[in-house]
Each structure stands twice: as C-alpha cells, then as structure tokens.
C-alpha cells in the first residue's frame, strides 16, 4: 500500500499545503479511507504535523479513517428522507450492525455512512448498499435487507 501513497504524492510535485485536500481525496479514492500511515506519509511530504492533517480531514464529512466494510451502507438524511422517517432507519441500522456513522463493524461486513442527499427523493427514505438503492425502507424492512447481505457470506 505504501508505494501507492508515494505514487499519489508524486502527482503533486510542488508539495504545497494547497494540495492537501486533493491529495487526501486521491488517497481515499484509492484506499477507501485515510490510514494512519497515509496521514504520516502526507505529513512528511508536505512537512505538516499529523495533528493539522487530521484536523483538516475531520473538518469535512467526506473523509473516513476506518476501512470500508464488505458492504458499504449509505443512509440518506436529506429533507425528504428525514420527513419520511430516515432517523428511525438510521437508528435501527446502528443498532443492528453495532456501529455509528463513519465506522466499520468489527466483523468487517458492514460500514456505515450518512449522506446529505442521494438525489432519489421519490424513493424516500432511501439507502444505498454498495451503490444499490433500497427504496422506502422502514425500521422493520431494513432488518431483512441487512440480513440478506449478511447471509451472502
């Protein structure tokens, strides 16, 4: 993995602080998350303390610091989904897989992310698992959906 980070960094030969966010985006695109090693590498490259990089990265919702699970769940918390009960859905998912948004379950099967709007308000409340949309989910129906993914193993 290390060589990959180096090759990403090499795309930013000027090594200025302005490139920090694009760099982190590239790394996340490649690895699925920002590892400690990646942050250290970026810090060395930009001569920037790890605390600063972590501070910048946590400011934005887009960065995560744990690897994605086998199944990545995106829960829409946009207005339409909210009105139709996405809070209950999110709560049920958190309870079911035992992690909060931005985390990955211990068995590595699920990871959870809250997104602002998927752009499918007609299907509200909507969630996407590995890019597949599940429409009009409820606190009840989500249990079955998660069970199906779990049984795929």
């Amino acid at each position, binding site marked *: 993995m290390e060589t990959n980070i180096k090759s990403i960094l090499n795309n930013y030969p000027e090594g200025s602080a302005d490139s920090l966010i694009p760099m982190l985006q590239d790394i996340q695109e490649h690895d699925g998350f920002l590892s*400690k090693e990646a*942050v*250290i590498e970026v*810090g*060395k490259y930009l001569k920037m*303390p*790890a*605390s*600063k*990089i*972590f*501070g910048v990265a*946590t*400011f*934005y919702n887009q960065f995560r*610091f744990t690897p994605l699970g086998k199944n990545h769940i995106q829960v829409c918390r946009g207005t339409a989904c909210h009105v139709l009960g996405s809070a209950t859905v999110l709560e049920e998912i958190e309870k079911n897989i035992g992690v909060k948004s931005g985390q990955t379950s211990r068995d590595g099967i699920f990871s959870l992310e809250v997104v602002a709007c998927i752009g499918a308000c007609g299907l509200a409340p909507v969630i996407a698992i590995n890019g597949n949309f599940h429409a009009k989910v409820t606190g009840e129906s989500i249990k079955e959906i998660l069970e199906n993914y779990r049984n795929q193993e």
Partner: protein
Amino acid sequence: MSFLIEVNNKQIEARKGETILDALKRQGIHIPTLCHIKGSFPSGSCRMCVVENVKTDRLVTACSTPVEEGMKVLTHSPRVIESRKTIVELLLSNHPDDCLYCVRNKNCELQDLSEELQVRERRIKGVKNSNHLDRSSASIVRDPDKCILCGRCVRICEDVMGVACIDFINRGSQSVIGSAFNIGLNTSSCVNCGQCIMVCPTGALSEKSHFPELIAMLNNPEKTVVVQYAPSISVSLAEEFKLPAGLDINSLMNAALRKIGFKYVFDTTFTADLTIMEEAAELVERVKTGGTIPMITSCCPGWVKFAEEFYPEMLPNLSSCKSPQQMMGAVIKTYWAEKAGLKPENIYSVSIMPCTAKKFEAQREEMTNKGITDVDAVLTTRELGQLIRMFGIDINNIAPETADSPLGFRSSAGKLFGATGGVMEAAVRTAYNMLTGEELLRFKIEALRGLDGCKEASLDINGLIVNVAVVNGLANARILLDQVKKGKKNYHFIEVMACPGGCINGGGQHIGASEEAVKARMKALYDIDDKETIKVSHKNPEIIQIYKDFLGKPLGHKSHELLHTHYCKRDVLL
C-alpha cells in the same frame, strides 16, 4: 505615527498599526479576552473582546482590529456587555459547571468572566460535554469537557514550542481539541512542557497529580520521604501565596517542607553543580578529542523528547549527562542512602520542579537503576503551593531553616540553571577552569542573559575561541538546529530550554504570571549570583567532597553508571 481616537466619548492617543486592544490597555481600560495571547497573531475567534464601533454601528473584535484615525469606540455600552455576557452564558451552557471540584477553582478565566459579567442564572441550557478524560500522559491530564475551544493551547504548541501535537478536530458543535487521530497524548509528539496548561483559561489542561500516593508515603513508617527542589522554585513559589514576584523564600520553603513531613530536604541546585562538573568535563573532552560538536545540553526533558522525535540524527550531540533532578535522585539512593544507613527501596524520593516534563522524565525507563527509580514522585511549583496550604502552613509566619547536608549546599552558578542561558554561564565558568586551571576574571556573560529567544556569544579561552548559543522556546531551537544542520552556524556548545525564558517560566509554575513577574524571577536568580561568594560549581565544598568520597572524578566509572544516560529515536505521530 500617532493620532487620536474617541473611546467612551473621550479622546485618547493611538499608534498607527496597533490594535484597539493595545491602545485601550495603555489607557488602563480593561477589555476581557479569551482566545488572545499576548505577542501572538490574533485569532479573533472567541468574540469576548468586542467593542462597539459607533461609526459603522458594528461590534468589532478589539484584539484583531487595527485602530483608525477618528475612530469612535464604546467599550462598555449595554450592547457590548450584553454580547459578552451572552458569550459567557453560551460557553457555560455545555460546560460541566463543577467549579468546586475543579483543579482551577479560584484561578479560572471563565469563572472570573462569569463573575465580572454578573451571570446569575442558567439562562441557556445545552447538552453537557461528554468526552474521554485523557490521562494517558505521564505529565498532562486533558479534560476536553472543560475546554472552551479558545485554541490558545493549539497556538502555543505550534508557534512557541514548534511541536503542534494538538489541533482542532471535527467541526461546529462537534469540535474538540486533540492529538492526531484523537488518541492519547502519550503516543503523540507532545513533549510534556506544559505550556498549554499555562495558557489554558479553564481546567481543561492540568498536571498529573501524585498527591494520594505522596500522602500515603508521608504516613508510612517504613518509608523515609525525602525531597529536592529545583533552582527556580525558591524565586517563584512566593507568587502562590500572593507575595511579590521574584521574592526568594528558600529558607521558608525548607521549613514548610519539613513541617509537611519530608524527613530530609535537599537542593537540586547541588546536583546542578554536579551536572556542570560532568557536562563541562564532557565538553572539554569533546573539544580536545574531536568528539561530536556542537554539544547540546540535556537537562531539559521537554527538549530531550523533542530531539528524540524531531532530530534523532542529532542525539549524539546531546550531552549524556542526566538532568540535575535525576542526578539528585541517583545520588540520594546510593551515596546518601549509604551515609544515612538506609535501604534505597525504603526511600521515597520526591522532587519539586517548575516543570511538567519532569514527571515524564522521572518515569523514563533509563532513569531506573536495578529496579530502583531515581525519583519516585514529581510535584510542580503549583502543587507545592497546594500542599503547603493543605497542611495549614502559614508561610508568612514560620522560622527560616536551611537545607540538609550533604546534598543541600550549592554554588550560585547552579542557581542560574533556572533561567535561560544560566546552564551555559555556569558551564563556561567551570570549563574555563578545567581548560586553563585558572578562574574567569569576569563571570557575567551579558550576551547570554535576558528573555530573547536565541542568544549567542564567542568566548576566548586562552586563545581557544568557543562559540556558544542559547535558545529557549522549542520553535527557536528548531530554527537554530536547522541552521546548524545546514552548516550555516558553527557552535561548540548549545543550551536548549523548552520553555520561553527557561525554568522560571516552566509549565509547572504559577498560572497567570505576567512577563514582569518572569523577569523578576530571573533578576532574583542573578541577584543571588551577584551577592554570593561561591560562584562556580567546582568550588562547592560538597561537590569536592562527593568526588573525593564517592564518585572519583568527572566522567569516571561511577559517574557513568549513575549520572549519565542515553537517548533513542522515538516513534510517535509527528
């Protein structure tokens, strides 16, 4: 250039380029601040210092707004006071509000503001903070619940110390201050200097206390509890009791320590002299035999950890001498224990230090000899103040006493360790003697005194030119070391102190001291040096005695075993 501005309907003089805050301060108008650090670039984030700009009808931050000619400002209008009060009420809305249990009770800026602005009800109710208490560090406890996010610790850590181990994490109401990946301070690049504690307005940052264990030991009949105190303590403790800054209360402190129950009272300044003997000998040896130059002092544990993290390639430059605290610890449990007929394991050795990093240093594995730790507990100046109050001792009404002998007699050179440049001056005095067999004619090296961040001097020792440098504040050390690495500067000997000003302004000192107070402490140390007759470490009779009876000679076998140590690269999140 100066011009007039109108403040509260009165004309006052302001200087072009200064902030409203500075102009008001000169006129004796107090404006409350939280995020402001004197001498640091303003952040203007807390909005505590807002004043009303009459012409624009806006509230502006006094700390970051420059004065303009003809400006009209109201500093305490109803609108301003309402705004400030609301800020305090908002800060209190998620604050634990547990002042009675807080380490900073009666010495808290948030508490003061709440009182000043007459906050008398819980008008705004918020969800109380609930974050993990970080007790992972050997020196510093972080309680993010009490944090008001002023960011002073973040800025001091980056700008003054050049460490930057903490920063803001997350955003908005989720914001906290923490190290990279929000893991414990112990695995971060924190050097334990405690300057963050010195600037923290609340109890979010404090030193790790060892009170319960200490009190148990004081009451354990099997243990002999002994204490040592650093050179700077006697001139800074007074402020803990509202006595004038820089007042030397050494003899009263001796008496107070005995009243608390410490059986023997030693002066770390004695081992400062011992450090000088070893360090000067090491310098002379390095210069004569072509060893690694520049040699860099190693008595500051904040600096040592900094070097281990950021400059591992320069570790061979560090003097192998332990710090005076650790030398005293080692000498107490060997030389003195033998003299006193005590088993080292039955001695509980406490030190009083102006420093939080000393707590870390005492628990370093290199500082344990055959399972016996050199020093068992470290208290800060502040904690000694608390201890004296806890034992009901009226420092104004006790009879002075002297420290115990041996290990209690010192030269005035050792005393200089408390101020930046002091180790250098003391070392030069003894190195001169070791090289020439004579004494310096003029002891004072004016160029190495004062609060400047980086000082240098060229000394002529019988034709041998010795270049020395003194830095304080680790950000300054960074600049100097980078120049040394690039070969732009050539020195023989460098003194580094982590804290700005040295130990007199250490992270364990009285909180809220002004720059004047720090200068007064410094002056007190130099006054002692002016007044006293034994001005060089090698003439301290107890030093001569310990070499005769026990150590043999500087850099000898015994010294190497007890008084010297080694360092290694540290793998931390930089």
